[in-house]
């Protein structure tokens, strides 16, 4: 295990995140001769799609599928490339001078980087429904993570709710693993077809088409799928039942596990803290960094690759990582040989096919993004939708000001899990757009860090940096 004291004070390239984007970027850069370190806070590399790829206890390859096992090659390539790969390493700070604050097993370091590739990927879109804070309600991604990494499968009364390709993938994986699902509650509005239809031809020609149909058939053959436009988790100290309905019709179903999924959005925290400019993406309903075709951001030397650059999927994430790494190599070591950029770009372009259809078709309904009443919006500080809406009515114009009113966004998760909800609620209430309202202004540390970790910074280093900046 790499310790903080094993790290050099500076590297040509620091890659943050060890999913497909980070692994591909680190492998390419190290092979071209850049001194490269990759940090990932999880116990193993792989990121979300290839979570636990090097140690998954799920040995039957059919359960997680060949698309999962494709990650093994990426992980092996990165390992063989000479890049230093450090897991259990949380990056808590990144500034525009590319000083990277990282913490490994309670020891912190500040590392200088000539180039930084942020490959922190995506997270699940918040899905605030009444009762979603009850024990027994979990994100679908969470259930998938414990399936991949620990071989845990739901075996009680399980309901899966939401929409998007990953929800169907998880359903199929649980069923193949011998797990049980009592119902899938599909929240995607039928009217989404109107916008999606124009992109159907592209989608039919893309690899997503055949794969998607097969998944849907596989799940529908075994589980009841019910379309809903209302959803509620009910229980006292934990989940007891799921209440759902469409129109006037209301139904209740006993459950001990409710898995929620409403698609994924870029994890923008670190890029925002580094001062990277972001813009609102109306099709995907999220903020994403503003980048050039090499994935360079508005901050010199910092690029963002993978789904953190805007959701495009795991295969695209790896190609984006390669493009960002080629740019880093060209900047620092122009004489080194790198793969043909045009070929990588073409592969990336092929991956984009069919995404527009999927995005429009799976766009979550307004009611599931902009909750009402007593539904908790901020899980950390237990702030409700009504409080956020009322505060917006009082004249509060943005999420930063909202913090002062409600503490919403000041808990340990720093707005990761409800930033989008708060922005959209304020926009809805004030009759403006999320782009206009903006997002949390984020400053380091982007992750809570202890005083003893700060105190573990080598004194000379900390002092020198304090004077230099």
């Amino acid at each position, binding site marked *: 295990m790499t310790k903080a004291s094993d790290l050099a004070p500076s590297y040509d390239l620091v890659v943050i995140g060890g999913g497909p984007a980070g692994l591909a970027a680190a492998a390419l850069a190290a092979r071209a001769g850049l001194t490269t370190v990759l940090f990932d*806070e*999880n*116990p193993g590399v792989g990121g*979300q799609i290839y979570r*636990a790829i090097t*140690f998954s*206890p*799920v*040995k039957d390859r059919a*359960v997680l599928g060949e698309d999962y096992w494709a990650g093994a090659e990426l992980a092996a390539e990165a390992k063989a490339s000479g890049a230093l790969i450090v897991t*259990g390493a*949380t990056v808590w700070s990144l500034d525009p001078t590319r000083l990277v604050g990282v913490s490994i097993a309670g020891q912190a370091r500040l590392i200088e980087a000539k180039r930084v590739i942020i490959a922190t990927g995506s*997270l*699940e879109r918040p899905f605030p429904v009444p009762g979603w*804070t009850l*024990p*027994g*309600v*979990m*994100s679908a*991604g*969470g*259930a998938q*993570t*414990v*399936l991949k*990494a*620990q*071989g*845990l*499968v*739901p*075996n*009680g009364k*399980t309901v899966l709710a939401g929409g998007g390709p990953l929800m169907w993938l998880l359903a199929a994986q649980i069923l193949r*693993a*011998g*797990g049980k699902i009592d119902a899938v509650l599909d929240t995607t509005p039928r009217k989404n077809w109107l916008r999606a239809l124009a992109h159907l031809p592209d989608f039919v020609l893309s690899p997503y088409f055949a794969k998607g149909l097969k998944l849907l058939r596989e799940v529908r053959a075994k589980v009841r799928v019910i379309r809903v436009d209302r959803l509620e988790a009910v229980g006292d*100290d*934990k989940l007891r039942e799921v209440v759902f309905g469409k129109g006037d019709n209301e139904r209740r179903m006993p459950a*001990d*596990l409710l898995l929620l999924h409403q698609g994924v959005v870029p*994890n923008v925290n670190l890029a925002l803290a580094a001062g990277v400019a972001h813009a609102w993406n109306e099709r995907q309903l999220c903020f994403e960094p503003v980048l050039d075709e090499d994935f360079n951001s508005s901050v010199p030397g910092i690029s963002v690759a993978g789904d953190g650059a805007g959701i495009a999927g795991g295969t695209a994430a790896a190609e984006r990582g390669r493009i960002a790494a080629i740019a880093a190599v060209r900047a620092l070591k122009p004489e080194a040989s790198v793969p043909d950029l045009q070929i990588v770009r073409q592969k990336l372009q092929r991956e984009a096919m069919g995404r527009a259809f999927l995005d429009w078709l799976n766009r979550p309904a307004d009611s599931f993004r902009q909750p009402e009443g007593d539904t908790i919006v901020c*899980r*950390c*500080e*237990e702030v409700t939708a009504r409080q956020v809406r009322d505060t917006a009515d009082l004249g509060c114009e943005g999420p930063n000001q909202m913090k002062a009113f409600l503490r919403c966004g000041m*808990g*340990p*998760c720093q707005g*990761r*899990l409800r930033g989008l909800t708060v922005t959209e609620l304020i926009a809805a209430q004030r009759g403006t757009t999320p782009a206009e309202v903006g997002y949390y202004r984020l400053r380091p540390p982007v992750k*809570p*860090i*202890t005083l003893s970790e700060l105190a573990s910074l080598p004194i000379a280093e900390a002092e020198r940096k304090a004077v230099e900046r």
Partner: protein
Amino acid sequence: MFKRLAETGAAVAITVDGRQIAARAGDTVAAALIAAGIDHCRTTPVSGAPRAPYCLMGVCFECLVTVDGVGSRQGCLVPVRDGMAVETQTGKREAGR
């Protein structure tokens, strides 16, 4: 709620609030709690409501527990180790202490 697909991985003995639970090598603290059927890991500082791990990927901070005396660790990011003592938390306000 969950069962193990296979009893792979060496057994790792940890305690939760003093009680022995059977974890496996490769578990995180949060996964070990889930596998043991422990339905919540903390209560909230604001209303005292029970909470359980939600995202399992380091985002939501619902999985905060005390590990070997250090409070508010993210259970979903900490691998289990033989002899580890985990305590559930009641309403502790500060994270990362």
